[in-house]
């Protein structure tokens, strides 16, 4: 379980997060949505300890994460931009991340098969296309069995087949009782895999509830329209 207690973060004059309070229970699949620049990635990075909040605390399983780093072996993270050392081969990168995490159960073969990455294993990362890099990125993020999975724009650059594979993987992980935090702008994807929506706007949580609750609140039948409604109201 993650507890976020009134997090504030500003970059210079730009106040990105302005008092975010959030409790993420174990076993939920949560979509973090919001317009560009609303603070989604900053929130995720605060949980990871990559961004250091100006104010507030983040507790993971009751422990404050500030200045600690060991808790990150409980988290699998997929960064938004996939870029790796160009001189390394795919197989070497996977080996290296395994080596760095050390001694965890790893299921890389399964994911390499699912994303059909076998032909690329001996290629250098610098020579891969954007979509293939994203698949490598996904393999690295998913191959560990951590209880919390954070995916930042997991669908970017993926072809339709891989997108379906990704959906199945996420549904499988849900069944295992893992917590998933997903940032995405792809509505159909979010609707298909997530239970709860967190809508961030101007650094605050604007909506936090299930998809059906969102539809009810906005009196819209359609998820995309409900989000659009939310956005419109937010801008007023």
């Amino acid at each position: 379980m993650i507890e976020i207690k009134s997090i504030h973060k500003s970059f210079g004059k730009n106040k990105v997060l302005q008092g975010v309070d959030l409790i993420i229970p174990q076993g939920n699949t949560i979509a973090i949505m919001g317009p560009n620049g609303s603070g989604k990635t900053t929130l995720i990075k605060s949980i990871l300890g990559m961004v250091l909040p100006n104010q507030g605390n983040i507790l993971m399983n009751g422990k404050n994460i500030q200045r600690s780093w060991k808790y990150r072996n409980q988290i699998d993270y997929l960064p938004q931009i996939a870029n790796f050392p160009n001189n390394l081969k795919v197989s070497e990168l996977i080996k290296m991340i395994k080596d760095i995490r050390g001694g965890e159960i790893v299921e890389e073969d399964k994911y390499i098969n699912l994303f059909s990455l076998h032909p690329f294993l001996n290629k250098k990362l610098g020579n891969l296309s954007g979509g293939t890099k994203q698949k490598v990125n996904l393999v690295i993020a998913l191959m560990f069995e951590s209880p919390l999975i954070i995916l930042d724009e997991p669908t970017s650059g993926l072809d339709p087949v891989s997108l379906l594979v990704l959906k199945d993987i996420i549904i499988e992980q849900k069944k295992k009782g893992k917590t998933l935090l997903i940032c995405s702008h792809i509505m159909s994807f979010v609707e298909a895999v997530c239970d709860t929506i967190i809508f961030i706007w101007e650094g605050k949580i604007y909506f936090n509830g299930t998809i059906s609750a969102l539809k009810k609140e906005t009196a819209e039948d359609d998820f995309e329209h409900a989000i659009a409604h939310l956005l419109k109201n937010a801008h007023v």
Partner: protein
Amino acid sequence: MFKILKYSFFDLIRSRWSYVYFAFFLLLGYVLLFLNNDVSKAVITLMNVIIILVPLMGTMFGVMYFYNSKEFTELLLAQPLNRTSIFIGQYLGVAISLSLSLIIGLGIPFLAYGIFKSEAILDFLLLLVTGGFLTFIFTAISFYIGLSNENRIKGFGYAILFWLFMAVIYDGLFLISLILFEEYPLDTFSLIASMVNPIDLSRILILLKLDISALLGYTGAVFQKFFGTHWGLIVSLGLLTLWVIIPVFLIRKKALKKDF
């Protein structure tokens, strides 16, 4: 930290530029030795090249590596690793691979020439040691500049400016001040001023070791009196070490406070 170091190091020794750097020193060593036919003279010429070029390469490689591995660093930051070991590990990876290019690149021709039978072996070793120090110093500073500047154009600019200042402008200012204040006793001033800049310090260290301080006139005598002794050598190496430790400490401090 050693895991990060290992991977940064292997990543770099596979890059084309490390080989170019290595081949350059290899070629330079051979050309100088067979043109001069004299190890001592070759060491002097090499010194002039090393003192300018090694800091430049350390600066460029450091800043380039730092910015190029930015996304990868973010991937590492999400792993259960502490920040200090990520950045210090990467820094050591760059600095060690550069130093190895230098040491092996120059070592091969000098070994082939028979450096072990020559009397200049200590001079040559000192040259490699100062070259190594300069690599570690300027790589550390360029990493610090990279960490402090999100904008890579600015980062590159500052790093090059810093190198230019230390390698060229500093000497100019030093000479102007010597001319302006020539009526005053300047022994201590020039001694301190040349110890503060790692490039000048390395140059003087090697020149004095080569026993050509007579060329430097009266100042040379003052310098010889100080640097020529073991005490001077120890102080100089201590200062060079300090020049490594301070930027590394600053990298650590910056890394712990930065948002990624």
